[in-house]
């Protein structure tokens, strides 16, 4: 079994047939995590508990009673999901050392299916950012920085430059999860998506990143950024695997009052061959300022791909797209200001040594615990929520949000099944270049293509499409109707098959995967 194999198609069978054991899978992944430590994708590696879970899974397979396809499968979880007994930090000093007493619903569901939790992945502090560069544990490095494909294309500026300085970012904020999946250290990872935080790093790291419909997957235990827009995100190496994980996570949760009441039925994706009944919408406003010519061309090529295969491809308009960033800024910061109010150092988390008064203790705790990005958003948010500003900003933004939602409603009602857009403006930037601009500027730039789907609560997915001229992944985004994940993923799977995105060629992975373990099939994957 090679690490690049699809879960449902190959790994599951291999586990059932005993060609590979959960313990072997787990050990292999743990070893790979160690050898790719420089990526800084993981904040916490839960080696002991993971091996124990793998052992228990193995017992079940021996008895012929696996819990399901996810039994024994190594997974990783973004460090803003609560995991009982394992540190949950949100990459912030505020929660350094915080051991949650409960599991997020999605984590519990994975564990109940027998998945093996390898560890918690790195992110921008409290999920605020589009680079995974602003957490207290340092930035995450895009595995593609070390790929043969990128190395071949990059021209070192001088001989003294080593591979340390020209690495590229993962995108964010779920960069750790994206890097973990991209570098084969796990088969699937959970991220979160509020403005694009799963799709953006998925695009930059060349993996599938699914943002489900708001209300489909429980947020109980996901430390919130914007309650009305957050969703747990799913990162995998192929669309089939995303559907599989979705099936194990979706559905009503009595602990989350914003989840749908109706039953959710997990589905297998059909192998679509005939796209003639499909109507693909191309929103013209997504030709955003700053969109690289390379991606623009790719987008066009993809549209042609659908057209040539018989699908109906139409240009559509989402006229309020240009307002979504400003609208998002108001609503996001307002909810952030509110959600962060609980971090006062009293009940849990960091508490300052300042003791002069309760107020001074609060102030010092929050200054010490939060980075500039978080504090900036809290200040903005509180400003917008002031009585004298509420109507002008918050209520106005909610009204604009309604307009943005209506844009999508109109387009979908006119017969369009799926929207096709770019996911990012360009391929991954080098870290040194990325940090030239501040977090707020970067977020405003990078969120433009992904943000509106969060406003409207719609499902959206990044499918890795092609390598850029620099040898880095570029993905395209599909946006679907509310709760129509099956249709969305079916189309995404068809597209994935058409484009045949190349496998990353990483030295570290190659070494581990060839001839080391007994039960595997033929080794190479280049």
């Amino acid at each position, binding site marked *: 079994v090679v690490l690049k194999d699809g879960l449902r198609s190959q790994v599951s069978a291999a586990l059932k047939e005993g060609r590979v054991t959960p313990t072997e899978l787990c050990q292999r992944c743990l070893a790979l995590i160690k050898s790719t430590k420089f990526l800084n994708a993981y904040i916490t590696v839960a080696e002991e508990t993971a091996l124990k879970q793998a052992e228990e899974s193995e017992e079940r397979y021996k008895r012929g009673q696996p819990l399901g396809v996810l039994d024994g499968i190594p997974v990783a979880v973004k460090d803003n*999901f*609560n995991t009982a007994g394992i540190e*949950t930090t*949100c990459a912030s000093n505020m*929660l350094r050392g915080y051991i*949650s*007493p*409960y599991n*997020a619903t999605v984590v519990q569901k994975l564990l109940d299916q027998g998945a093996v939790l390898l560890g918690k992945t790195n992110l921008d502090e409290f999920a605020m950012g589009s680079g995974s560069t602003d957490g207290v544990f340092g930035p995450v490095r895009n595995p593609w920085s070390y790929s043969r494909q990128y190395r071949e294309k990059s021209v070192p500026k001088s001989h003294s430059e080593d591979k340390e300085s020209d690495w590229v970012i993962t995108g964010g904020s779920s960069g750790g999860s994206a890097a973990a999946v991209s570098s084969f250290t796990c088969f699937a990872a959970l991220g979160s998506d509020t403005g694009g935080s799963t799709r953006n790093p998925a695009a930059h790291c060349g993996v599938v990143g699914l943002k489900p419909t708001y209300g489909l997957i429980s*947020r*109980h*235990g*996901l*430390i*919130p950024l*914007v*309650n*009305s827009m957050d969703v747990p995100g799913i990162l995998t190496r192929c669309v089939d695997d995303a559907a599989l994980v979705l099936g194990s996570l979706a559905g009503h949760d*009595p*602990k*989350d*009052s*914003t989840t749908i*009441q109706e039953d959710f039925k997990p589905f297998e994706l059909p192998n679509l061959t005939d796209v003639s009944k499909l109507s693909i919408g191309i929103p013209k406003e997504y030709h955003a300022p700053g969109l690289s010519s390379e991606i623009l061309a790719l987008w066009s090529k993809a549209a042609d791909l659908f057209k040539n295969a018989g699908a109906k491809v139409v240009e559509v308009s989402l006229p309020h797209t240009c307002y979504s960033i400003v609208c998002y800024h108001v609503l996001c910061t*307002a*909810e952030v*200001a*509110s959600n*962060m*109010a*609980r*971090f*006062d150092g*009293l*009940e*849990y988390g960091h508490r300052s040594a300042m003791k002069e008064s*309760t*107020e001074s203790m*609060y102030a010092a705790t929050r200054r010490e615990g939060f980075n500039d990005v978080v504090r900036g958003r809290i200040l903005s948010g*509180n400003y917008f*929520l*002031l*009585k004298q500003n*509420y109507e002008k900003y*918050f209520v106005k933004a909610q009204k604009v949000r309604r307009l943005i939602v209506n844009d999508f409603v109109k387009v979908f009602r006119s017969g369009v099944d799926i929207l096709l857009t770019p996911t990012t403006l360009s391929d991954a930037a080098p870290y040194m270049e990325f940090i030239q601009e501040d977090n707020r500027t970067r977020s405003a730039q990078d969120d433009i293509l992904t943000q509106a789907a969060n406003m409207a609560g719609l499902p959206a997915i990044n499918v890795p499409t092609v390598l850029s001229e620099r040898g880095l992944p570029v993905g395209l985004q599909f946006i679907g109707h509310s709760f129509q994940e099956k249709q969305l993923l079916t189309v995404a799977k068809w597209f994935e098959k058409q484009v045949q995105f190349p496998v990353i060629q990483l030295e570290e992975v190659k070494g581990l995967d060839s001839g080391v373990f007994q039960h595997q099939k033929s080794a190479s994957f280049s």
Partner: protein
Amino acid sequence: LAPWIPVVGLEIHAQISSNSKLFSGSQVQFAAPPNSLVSFFDASLPGTLPVLNRRCVEAAVMTGLALNCSINKKSLFDRKHYFYADLPAGYQITQQRVPIAVNGSLSYSLCIDNKMSQMVTKTVRIKQIQLEQDSGKSLHDDTRSQTLVDLNRAGVGLMEVVMEPDMCCGEEAAAAVRELQLILQTLGSSQAVMAEGQLRVDANVSVHHPGEPYGVRTEVKNINSIRFLAKAVDYEIQRQIEELENGGTILNETRAFDSKLGCTVPMRDKEGKQDYRFMPEPNLPPLILYDAKSLPANMNHQQVINIDWIHERLPDLPSVKREKLVEQYGILPEHSFTLLNEDGLAEFFESVVNQTQMKPKKVIGWILNDLLSYLKQHSLTVKESPVSSFLLADLLNLLEKKEISSTAAKRVLAELWKGEGKTPLEIVKEQKLELLQDQKELEQICQAVIDGQENEVIMMVPR
């Protein structure tokens, strides 16, 4: 000097009587060990979400219906932000935009001139009832310069009942709150015991001259009993009048009632206007209630609340109970007030009536004058009475059958009060309190008295 019109409004927080809290499953219980009834949500652990408690909504609907409110079929939840040690999330979940019930009224009665015989009925408008979370408790330990926080109460469901400024003095405020308390206890939506913090009252007080606009109002807090409510309101009215007549001004401030000194004092940490930065609570969808008309056919009735269904099952409110008592037993209206005012007294009265031939109109005297004054003297509740309804009925039967005089009956009652387990008949026999019924015997006794007092008998009555 021009007359002053005092204006009094009330904000009342009633703790909902439920097993668990408004948004979490932890238990509601008075005086439990500190921080023993705190769920992850109550402690504001990151990632936890509120889940609405059905029973709390039902309690609020019942209360709204009993107060003649319109129940909003769609109401919303909001966050009210401020930092305080007993508010773990940094905000309280409340209903600021659209509360669950609005535009009701409460009728209450007052005695004119302190005479029970002249009662007048007044009405106060209920502006709204909203559901909200209670906060925890902070205990300030000044000796060690620390504050101890107990979150047991954090998240308990409250109904905030807002009474419009239709009242004019302490007595009215007290009577209105008393009636509300009785209603809540009858409904069971709140136990409303002020001493246990289940009913908290803040008073808004202002004064103005007739024809002029309302004056600046102050808010009075820290009122721990109905008696103190009347005192606090009256004191504040007086204070404002004196202040204004001396050329001063009234500040729009919050004041605390000091029960020891009997006055109101400014509360230091409430100075300055707070901006609560209200925001919709994004984790709770709008609360939708149904009635018989709007209830969809295929809806699982476990999942919804039907206002009409609750309305049909409301118990008799105190005002209705009083009317029934007056009608059924022929007692006076003011009697019915006293009966309902004392927990268990109405039931006691009815129980005695059922066990005796004495007319209710006569029984009531024994209940309100004799029994009740004994209970008050010894600070006992009706439940704690050593004289049971059975014993009292027994006694009253003896009286009714003319086996004893009413004077004798009072002596027997005094003896019964000792709770030594003797029956009325036994006491009568012991103390030789039987009434003589034999005519001849009575004549003999009288004759003997007359014969023995020849000097005092100054006139012979012709036969």
